[in-house]
C-alpha cells in the first residue's frame, strides 16, 4: 500500500461515509414488521392497516434510534481500540479485554444503584461515573504492568482478565444486594446490547464521539511515531507521556460514554482496528477515522443480525461480537507469539 496522501485520505473516508449511510438505510429497513424505507414514499394508507404513518413510526421511533446507537457504539469502540493499541504498544489491546469497559460498567452500575441518576437526572452522571471507572482501570493496568519504567504487553492482558473478573463480581454483588430480581437485566448488560433510546441521548453520545474522534485524529501522527518505538518517538519530537495520557483519556471517555448505555459489547475494539488496518493500512491519520466508520458499519450489521437471526427472539449483539472477536483474539495471539508481545 502506498504511503498516505491527501487524495487517498479523502477518497477512503468519503467511500466509508457513503457506506455508513447505505448500511444505515438497509438496517433501518430490516425488521419483523416488514416495513422498509420505501414505505415512507408509498400510499398514506394501503387499506390493509399498513401505510406511511405506521411505517414512519416503526422506523423513526423503533429501528432508527437503535441503528444510530449501534453506529455510535461501534464507532466509539473501534476508534478507542485503535488508540489503545497504539499508545499501549499492544495490538491485542481492546477496551473490553483490558477491563476498561468493565471499569466503566462498574462505575455506571454503582451510581445507578446509589440512586444518583434519580436524584441528579439532568446531569449525565452515569457517563461521568463510567469515565472515572475506565480511567481508573487504565491507571491500574499501567501501574501494574510497568517493569522498570516500561510497560510490558503480556502482563497487561493478564491484568485485564483479572480486573474483568473482579468487576463482574462487584457488579453482581451490588445488584444482588440491592434487588436480586434485576439480575436478569444485569446479565443482558454484561453481554452488551443496543437498547432503543431517545434522540437526545443519542445526540449527546454523537457529540462526545465526534469530539473524541477528532481529538484522536489530531494525535494520529504522534500515534504513528509511538508505534515505531517510544525512544524513536522521543527523538522525533514527540512528548510521549503527554500524548499517551491524552489519548488514554479521550479513548476512555468515548468508551465509557457508550458502555454506560449499551453495557459490555466485547471485542469490537479488537476486531475493527485489525479489519480497518487490513483495508486502509497502519497510518493512524487515516486509521483512526476509518476505524470509527468501520466500527459503525460493523456494529450496525451485527446488531441487525442479532435482531433477526432467531426472530422473533432477539439476541444481545454482544453474543455475536464475542463469538467473532474471541476466536480472532486467539488467532492473532497465536500468530504473533514471540514477535511483539513478549517484550
Amino acid at each position: 500500500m502506498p504511503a498516505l496522501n491527501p487524495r487517498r485520505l479523502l477518497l477512503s473516508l468519503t467511500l466509508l461515509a457513503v457506506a455508513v449511510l447505505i448500511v444505515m438505510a438497509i438496517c433501518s429497513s430490516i425488521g419483523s414488521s416488514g416495513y422498509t424505507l420505501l414505505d415512507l414514499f408509498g400510499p398514506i394508507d394501503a387499506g390493509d392497516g399498513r401505510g406511511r404513518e405506521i411505517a414512519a413510526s416503526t422506523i423513526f421511533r423503533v429501528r432508527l434510534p437503535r441503528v444510530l446507537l449501534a453506529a455510535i457504539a461501534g464507532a466509539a469502540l473501534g476508534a478507542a481500540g485503535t488508540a489503545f493499541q497504539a499508545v499501549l504498544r499492544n495490538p491485542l489491546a481492546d477496551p473490553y479485554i483490558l477491563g476498561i469497559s468493565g471499569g466503566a460498567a462498574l462505575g455506571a452500575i454503582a451510581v445507578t444503584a446509589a440512586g444518583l441518576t434519580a436524584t441528579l437526572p439532568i446531569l449525565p452522571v452515569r457517563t461521568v461515573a463510567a469515565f472515572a471507572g475506565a480511567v481508573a482501570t487504565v491507571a491500574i493496568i499501567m501501574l501494574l504492568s510497568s517493569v522498570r519504567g516500561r510497560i510490558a504487553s503480556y502482563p497487561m492482558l493478564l491484568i485485564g482478565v483479572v480486573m474483568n473478573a473482579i468487576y463482574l463480581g462487584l457488579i453482581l454483588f451490588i445488584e444482588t444486594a440491592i434487588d436480586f430480581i434485576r439480575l436478569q437485566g444485569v446479565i443482558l448488560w454484561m453481554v452488551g446490547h443496543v437498547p432503543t433510546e431517545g434522540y437526545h441521548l443519542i445526540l449527546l453520545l454523537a457529540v462526545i464521539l465526534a469530539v473524541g474522534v477528532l481529538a484522536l485524529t489530531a494525535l494520529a501522527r504522534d500515534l504513528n511515531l509511538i508505534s515505531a518505538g517510544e525512544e524513536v518517538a522521543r527523538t522525533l519530537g514527540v512528548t510521549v507521556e503527554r500524548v499517551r495520557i491524552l489519548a488514554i483519556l479521550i479513548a476512555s471517555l468515548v468508551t465509557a460514554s457508550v458502555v454506560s448505555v449499551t453495557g459490555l459489547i466485547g471485542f469490537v475494539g479488537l476486531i475493527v482496528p485489525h479489519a480497518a488496518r487490513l483495508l486502509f493500512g497502519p497510518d493512524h491519520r487515516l486509521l483512526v477515522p476509518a476505524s470509527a466508520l468501520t466500527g459503525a458499519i460493523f456494529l450496525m450489521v451485527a446488531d441487525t443480525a442479532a435482531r433477526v437471526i432467531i426472530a422473533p427472539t432477539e439476541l444481545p449483539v454482544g453474543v455475536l461480537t464475542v463469538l467473532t472477536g474471541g476466536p480472532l483474539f486467539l488467532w492473532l495471539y497465536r500468530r504473533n507469539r514471540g514477535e511483539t508481545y513478549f517484550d
Partner: protein
Amino acid sequence: MTDQPTDGGDGGTAPGAAILEARNLHFRYPGAGVPIFDGLSLAIGAGDFLGLIGPNGSGKTSLLRLLSGTLRPSAGEVRLEGRSVHSFRPRERAQRLAVVPQESRILFNFSVMEMVLMGRAPHLGLLGLEGSHDRAIARHALEEMDLGDREETPLRELSSGERQRALVARALAQEPAILLLDEATAFLDLKHRLQIGEILSRLNREQGLTIMAISHDLNMAARYSSRLALLKQGRIVADGTPAEVLTPDQVRAVYETEVRVEIDPSSGAPYVIPRSPVGA
C-alpha cells in the same frame, strides 16, 4: 534559569565550535547503586565525525541518550548550539538532531516508505501530511541506503540489515545538523557497513553534517572518524585522532585485550589486530 541561553544561542554555530556539548554530567539510573557518569564532559565540534568507543557497559548508549535529550542528567547539562538541550521544544530539537537507534521494534505493518517519512514529522505542521518535497527527501535517503526499490515493502519483510539501513534513511530524511548513531552498522554485512561509512563520511565532508557514531568495530571507527573518544566506566580515558587513541597500551587498558596496531597504507588509519585477552 539554567535553561536560558547564556552566550548568544542564536542557532548559528561556527565550524569547529562546540555544537553539542556535555558539561559535567552526572547520571544514575533509578534504583541503580553506582552512578554511570560522575562528572563527564565532552564537546562535539560542528563538522566533527566522532567515533565513541568503549567496552560493553561503559556508558556509550546512556551518553547518547543524554546528548539527544531523551534522558535528563541529575546534574550538569547538555548544550545544543549553545543552549540547554532541554530548552528546545521537542520538535525543534528533532529538526536539529537525529538518532539512529541500535534496533527498534515497530508495531503494525508499516511500509519502508511510511517509516522513512516519519523522519519528516518534526518539519510538518500539526495535521500536515507529507508533501512531494518530503517524499523526494525520503526517496533520496532510501536510494542512498540502497533501498530505492523497497519503498512499499512492509518493514517486517526486510532482513535485519535492510531494516537497519531503513533506520539510517529515516534519520537522514530528518535533515538534521547532528546525527547520533548507536551501533548502526552492527547487523550489516561488509558491503553495507562500508557503504554506510562512505555515505556518512561524504555527508560529513560535503554538507558539514556533525556525526557521533558508537561502534564496537574499532577498525570501522578508526577508518571513518576524524576523532575518537574512548569511554571506560563512564569516563573518557582518551580523546584524539584515531592514531592517538588506538595505541596498544590504551586498548589493553580499556578492553583487557592484547592487540597489535598497524597503519593501513591506503587510508592512513590505524587498524587493530586482536591477539589475546589479557592474562590468557
